[in-house]
């Protein structure tokens, strides 16, 4: 069963030099699986994520032939309906926890706030739910962390808190936009494992948006490679290294290897790619 159905998604912004299209007709289906969207800055990958969540602010415009989440047409949904969906059934993890958490509210209360908004439950049940979700994201002392302020936790912990906040309502779809790029290498794996675990156990659909080919290949089932607003390649994650599109091939080749002996790294020939699409 398909959870998310996107057909011909377009995102446009007006500029000095006319209207610019940053997402140019994206079509894909998402089941309860892990989908990776890879691309470089300006490829439109983040805008895709934001458009799916209904987070593109005017003067940006989003159009699509179909945009359905679990049978609900997202295109004509009023803001209030969208708000009810967001958080409760679809949620988004952003890049940097430092900017996404309110610095003057205790962590436990921030997580609980979502419950208060979307579910009717008493204070005790709410706290219990928050402690459980903190445990689910592998925070060892949930009681202690519950009372901390966002600045009192490390980056990795902050990102786990963000994830906890996003999964406390048990959404069906999670969009993670560069969830690890603000984190240290040693913490990245943990955060991704938690996401992975949640997807498997709760049967969520996950869209992982990243510039890191290797990371996406390792943690996703299927990959979309975006370039200049279009999907240039779609493949199973394990087949990424057999990719055929010149952009994907160029991207793979330009990453230095641990046993690097090339004198120069191959560089993308953007003109050739532009002509090819």
């Amino acid at each position, binding site marked *: 069963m398909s959870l998310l159905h996107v057909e011909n998604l377009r995102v446009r*912004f007006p*500029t*000095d*030099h006319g209207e610019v299209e940053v997402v140019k007709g994206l079509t894909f289906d998402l089941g309860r699986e892990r989908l990776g969207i890879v691309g470089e800055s300006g490829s439109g990958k983040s805008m895709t994520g934001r458009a799916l969540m209904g987070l593109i*602010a005017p003067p*940006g415009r989003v159009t699509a032939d179909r945009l359905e989440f679990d049978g609900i047409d997202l295109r004509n949904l009023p803001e209030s309906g969208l708000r009810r969906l967001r958080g409760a059934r679809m949620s988004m993890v952003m890049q940097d926890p430092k900017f996404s958490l309110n610095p003057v509210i205790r962590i436990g209360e921030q997580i609980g706030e979502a419950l208060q908004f979307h579910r009717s439950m008493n204070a005790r049940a709410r706290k219990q739910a928050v402690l459980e979700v903190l445990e689910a994201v592998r925070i060892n002392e949930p009681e202690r962390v519950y009372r901390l302020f966002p600045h009192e936790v490390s980056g990795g912990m902050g990102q786990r808190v963000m994830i906890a906040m996003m999964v406390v309502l048990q959404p069906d779809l999670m969009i993670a936009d560069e969830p690890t790029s603000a984190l240290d290498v040693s913490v990245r794996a943990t955060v991704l494992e938690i996401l992975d675990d949640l997807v498997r156990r709760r049967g969520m659909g996950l869209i992982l948006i990243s510039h890191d080919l290797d990371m996406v290949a390792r943690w996703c089932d299927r990959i979309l490679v975006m370039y200049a607003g279009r999907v240039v390649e779609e493949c199973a994650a394990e087949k990424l290294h057999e990719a055929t599109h010149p952009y994907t091939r160029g991207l793979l080749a330009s990453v230095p290897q641990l046993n690097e002996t090339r004198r120069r790294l191959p560089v993308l020939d953007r003109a050739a790619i532009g002509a090819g699409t």
Partner: protein
Amino acid sequence: MSMAIFSRDWLLSEDPETRAQARLGQFYRLMRALMRNPLAMVGLAIIVALLVVAAFAPWIAPYSPLQGSLQNRLQPPSSAHWMGTDELGRDILSRVIHGSRITLYIVLLVAVISAPLGLIVGAVSGYFGGWVDKVLMGFTDIFLSMPRLIMALAFVAALGPGIENAVIAIAITAWPVYARIARAETLTFRTAEFISAVQMQGASHARVIWRHVIPLCLSSTIVRVTLDMAGIILTAAGLGFLGLGAQPPLPEWGAMISRGRAFILDQWWVATMPGFAIVIVSLGFCLFGDGLRDVLDPKGKVKV
């Protein structure tokens, strides 16, 4: 914009060929952003009108601002005297027009004295931090904690009434705000890498502050000065009203209101007309300042 060389494309070019083209292009973008804000344009129109009126006052004013005929005293507004006449038979319109010169003089002088002073104190304080910051900001706080009008009153009382002394008094109470703003602004990028980079190239502290720090504080200070203009006009008018600013028979707006106070119930126009002038000009500076802030202040502006 009719000359080919100043075409829109030339100004908006992403690849300017000369420094001049780059600068003009930036200026054009700024002006265009400002033009999209109708309220800011209203403000700008008022300020331009003030400048024109002040510049051509002797030619615009239908009568002398200082001499009237006592037969004509306290005439209501009419086709001969659009704003009526005052208790000495002087044409109020002419006095308001000439008063614009005094207002402009005070406002500009205060801005020229207080803004650079505040900017330098703030930038130095924020850049060096440590004890330099403590001393300078302590000093600033002392001035900041004193109520502006009372301070100005005290100064004028000590130095004697007059426009120059009023200007000095207002300037002395106005600069600490700019110092605070410049310091806050400097603190946000004091440790930025572009500052480290110029330091690493051997630039002296004076050069870093003057060429790299102050230009970044400039826009927020300009915005604040424009917004403060209204306050400065009101303070000057207040001093004039209390008889401590411009001295009669100079047609200073505040002083005119003060004289008109005696007839406020029967000859309302004597006090009201200069009051309108103050309100309109203050409003003009406020509107323009708000518009400038939207355009110049990078904070709160989302770039896509």
